[in-house]
Structure formats: C-alpha cells, structure tokens
C-alpha cells in the first residue's frame, strides 16, 4: 500500500461522511427556495420581498438537515477528526463559493435595479455560471464527482425554465421547472436517507 492507495482510502472515508442524502437535500432546499421565490415574485410580490419571504422556509429546512446529520447520521457513522491537509482543503471550500456568490449577488442587483437589463437572458446565464462555479468548487474541494453533475443540472434549470416559458405560454413555467427539480433532489435525498438507515444502525455500545 503506497501513498496513493492511502489517499484513495482517505478520500473514500471522507466521502462516506456525506452519505444519507445530505448533499441532495441541501441542493433541493436551495432550489426550493429559488423556485418559491420565483413563484412569489410572479404573484405580485417584489423580487427582494419574495426572497425574504422564502428565506425562513429554507433556513428551517437547512436546520432540519443539520440536525439529521448531527443526531442521526454522524452517530451511525462514527466521529472523526480528519488530517490537517483535508481540513485546509475544506477551509478553501468556503472561499471560492463565497466570492462567487458575492459576485453573483452584485450582478443580480445590477440586473434587478436596471429595468433595461431585467428581461435579458444574461441575468439567467450569469446565475447559471455562479451555480456551476459554486458546485464545481464544492466538487473539487470535497472530492465528490457527482457534484459536477448537480452543478450542471442546477445551472441548466434556469435557462431551461426560461426557454420552456417561451414554448409553453405560462408565467409559472420557470418556477414550476425549478420546483420540480427541487422535488426530484429532495426525493433522492429521502431515498438515500432511508437506504442509509437500513444499512447503518445506531450502535448499542
């Protein structure tokens, strides 16, 4: 067993701590918040108002996910303190998405405030790019290849919803597309959690 084998084992151990559909639930909740926000904004609420109204729902659900991880998943997997290299890599994970989200928020603000730019696809494309960058950074720093796929899906949902809106003439097509994707992710998360609970039992000792 050489260093590369040990790296593989370390990677396998690390990724095993994201079992139980945590990543899928997190992605689903973000999409749910964005979908509900889009739905509210098309029902007469302002863009910022809609975002603020849906934020508590997302926060409550995220707290539930955190509690499930803390009290259901971790006791079954065991507690581990990873090596300093892994912890350093994880701390870098915070930087890239944070910077990207700040840049995305600034771009979003410019588009929201500027009426002439509001209906241009550039806003959606930049949002998709932010999603892809955030998920790719997470995929790289967490060593989880499936996050690239999730990033591509999240990045595609918005332009796809907008495109479908032009085909199916309904003002709720975009929110419906986002919400449908959110429910798919949340359903996958539940399936993963059930499979996890069947595989791992809480230790008796």
């Amino acid at each position, binding site marked *: *067993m*050489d260093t590369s084998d*040990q790296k593989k*084992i*370390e990677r396998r*151990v690390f990724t*095993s701590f994201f079992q139980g559909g945590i990543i899928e639930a997190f992605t689903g909740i973000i999409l749910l918040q964005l979908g509900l926000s889009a739905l509210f904004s098309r029902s007469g609420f302002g863009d910022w108002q809609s975002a603020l109204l849906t934020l508590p729902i997302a926060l409550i659900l995220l707290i539930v996910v955190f509690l499930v991880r803390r009290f259901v998943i971790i*006791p*079954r*997997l*065991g*507690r*581990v*303190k*990873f*090596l*300093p290299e892994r912890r350093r890599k994880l701390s870098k994970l915070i930087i890239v998405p944070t910077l990207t989200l700040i840049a995305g928020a600034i771009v979003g603000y410019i588009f929201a405030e500027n009426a002439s730019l509001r209906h241009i696809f550039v806003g959606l494309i930049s949002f998709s790019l932010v999603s892809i960058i955030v998920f790719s950074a997470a995929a790289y720093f967490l060593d989880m290849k499936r996050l690239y796929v999730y990033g591509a899906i999240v990045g595609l949902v918005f332009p796809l919803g907008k495109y479908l809106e032009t085909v199916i003439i309904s003002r709720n097509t975009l929110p419906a597309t986002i919400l449908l994707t959110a429910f798919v992710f949340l359903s996958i998360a539940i399936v993963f959690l059930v499979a996890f609970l069947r595989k*791992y039992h809480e*230790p008796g*000792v």
Partner: protein
Amino acid sequence: MKELENQGKKQTTDSLSEIMNIDRLVHSPARLSILTYLSVVEEGDAVYLLNQTGLTWGNLSANVTRLQEAGYIEVVKEFKDKKPHTLLKLTDRGRKAFHDYQNKMKGLLDIKGHLPRGT
C-alpha cells in the same frame, strides 16, 4: 557480469530475509485494517472503525487492546451526551510501525515481481 548477478542475488536474499523481521502485530489483517483506517485520520471513534473495518465489537476491542498495549494507538474513553465514547488515535510509534511495515511489504512485493513464476 557475474559480479552483478551475485549482487542481485544477495539483494534478493536480503530482502526475502526481511520477511522474518515483519512486525507480526501489524501483519494481522484485522490490526492492519485498524491501523490503515486510523492512519488516514487524526483521530476517530470506535463506531468509525467498526463501520470501516467491518469487524465485530468483540474482535475490534481485542485487537485495539493489543495495539494499545504495544503503544501503537492511544485510547481515550470519555462520556459524550451521557453515553460512553471511545476515541482512538495512532501514536507516533504506531505511525512509524505502520510505515515501516508498508515499506517492507512493498520491497518484498517488488522482489516477488522480478522472480520467475512459481517461486
């Protein structure tokens, strides 16, 4: 040429004789597995080792005790949320023993790769 051949034979014999010096405490599959999974983390609890190694509680406990007695791992027993919690960590001695074992085995397997079939 003959000198080179003799040198090669001597190296092979030296490396094969190393098999006798292999740390038997590390060589057992269960203990090797425990050391491997502890070597990739700073510290981990008994549940972590139980899941990763696939050992039973009894087997894990017996092998952990042997490794602890040899000074290869450090065991801290504590209470977390009023429940007993056993934290395990590879000591410097244990890490060295594990790496020495890895190098010896790698050397032996490299030699084996150069030997004719059936040896």
